[in-house]
């Protein structure tokens, strides 16, 4: 992923003008912009169907493996590392990928950041308490995340970091100490959950000393059902 290749594809002037749009690109690569439909058509003529299918399979594998850590997939990485020469048929490939994800896996590929073109996978199916597999091991981190998201939600979407830490302390999770289950809690909450786009940890402007606040992340907006959170709150407060 750190290779810097100068691609020799020819680009139309309009594409090179939009260079400044994509901020995520390395300096050595030309930024990727959606090819026009005529370009796609020309591109499809260059490759055989099975070649394109092969690329589709590679893209699928890449996305599935990236999803293991729940880190969003960057379109730029996808194009640079997997597609390479197939850039011009990107729309067709993505179309097939979305279709396969939908029909074979039951997943949806969602763009959570339209500016930087980040994608995540979510489940098409909704789980309920009755259908959840009983013996499947659960991830306690999800429990922690859920608590944080609930508090932020009940506080209308923005919460000072101190409030979160105080609430967690009452639940015997201290960001200053190493937790038996979660380890470095502060790092988990402010780094891992943020990278996975479950939470946003932003600085409050004009504060001295520096303060931060938590918000729902782009992934949480798509993955988490707010109605279900309310249900849970009602259940717990009984």
């Amino acid at each position, binding site marked *: 992923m750190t290779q810097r290749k100068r691609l020799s594809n020819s680009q139309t002037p309009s594409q090179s003008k939009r260079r400044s749009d994509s901020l995520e690109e390395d300096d050595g690569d030309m930024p990727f912009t959606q090819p026009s439909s005529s370009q796609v058509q020309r591109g499809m003529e260059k490759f055989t169907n099975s070649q394109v299918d092969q690329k589709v399979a590679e893209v699928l594998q890449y996305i*599935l*493996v990236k*999803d*293991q850590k*729940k880190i969003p997939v960057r379109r730029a990485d996808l194009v640079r590392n997997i597609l390479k020469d197939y850039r011009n048929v990107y729309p067709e490939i993505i179309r097939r990928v979305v279709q396969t994800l939908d029909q074979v*896996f039951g*997943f949806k590929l969602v763009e959570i950041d339209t500016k930087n073109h980040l994608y995540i*996978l*979510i*489940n098409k*199916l*909704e*789980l*309920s*308490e009755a259908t*959840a597999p009983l013996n499947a091991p*659960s*991830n*306690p*981190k*999800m*429990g*922690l*995340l*859920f*608590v944080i998201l*609930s*508090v932020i939600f*009940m*506080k*209308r979407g*923005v919460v000072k970091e101190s*409030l979160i830490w*105080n*609430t967690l302390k*009452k*639940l*015997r999770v201290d960001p200053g100490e190493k937790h038996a*289950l979660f380890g470095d809690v502060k790092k988990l909450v402010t780094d891992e959950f943020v990278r996975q786009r479950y939470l946003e940890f932003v600085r409050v*402007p*004009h*504060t*001295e000393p520096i303060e931060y606040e938590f918000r729902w992340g782009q992934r949480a907006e*798509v*993955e*988490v*059902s707010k109605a*279900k*959170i309310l*249900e*849970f*709150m009602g*259940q*717990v*407060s009984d």
Partner: protein
Amino acid sequence: MRKSKGGGEDPSRHNGSTGRRRGDRNSEGDHDGFGSGSLQDDDNDPATRREIRSKYRDLINSVQQNREDMLSPSNNKLTEVLEEANKLFKDVRQPREAALDAQLLVVATDLGKEKASQLFAEGSSFNPAAFAVHLLSFMGLNRLENGDNEEENGEGYLPNDAWDRVARRAECCFRTAPTFHYMMGSFHAEPPPPKQRIERQRKLKKMEESHQEATEKEVERILGYLKSYYQDDPTTPISYYEFVIDPNSFSRTVENMFHASFLIRDGLARMYLDDDKLPCIAPVEEEMEGAASTSRHQCVTSISMKTWRVSQFYL
């Protein structure tokens, strides 16, 4: 005119005592070149200017340091700060002071925004502390039977699967895509080679041992033969070549030579040249051990097929 802070102080005194209350606030480098106590136009008096600036800085600091206090809906401190700023602003003449005024306004409006959002939130009455206590019950907290206080504090024994309970309940609210893993995991190329090496070494050792045992047995057997020959006729020397050569097998001959060399190495037999300068071999008597061990010589004997075939005729 200057009644705001430190009331009654002579404004023309440029001691800056009011300004330097915080000590490090006065970052200006300018010196007051004018003499003290002169009746100057306030607009140009650097001391006055400095005073105004320092007052602004004090206000800004007070807003930042006492943020929590100002946010509380129970007081009007923010309004007071703004009124103060209004008064100060009347005397502002230079851009520097105006910039500070602007800065104060930025800080104050931020605070104002937070206060406003607080107002809105007051209506929802969500208490995170109470939520935490309820959650602990949900997680299966075993409260001690000591009294009512424990219930409110959330003390007690939290079971190990506490967070798992929450997680299971939480997973229903998430539309997380299940992650993809290979069922059998990936295979490792590493472990087999070390095992092979270990096994091979073990085999080698066993073979070596068996070799050694066989050799020892053979050596002993030959020693036995040598001794019996010697006992039959202690006076006649035993020709070395007669002893080792097997007329029917070359390989046997070589083996015999090999085993005989062990006997000599271990001092169980000795070789000497008889009167005809032919090598002879004889077992070493135990009494003679001391003498034999002091004089040790080495020699190399060899035999080839040609020689062996020739010997066949003579033996």
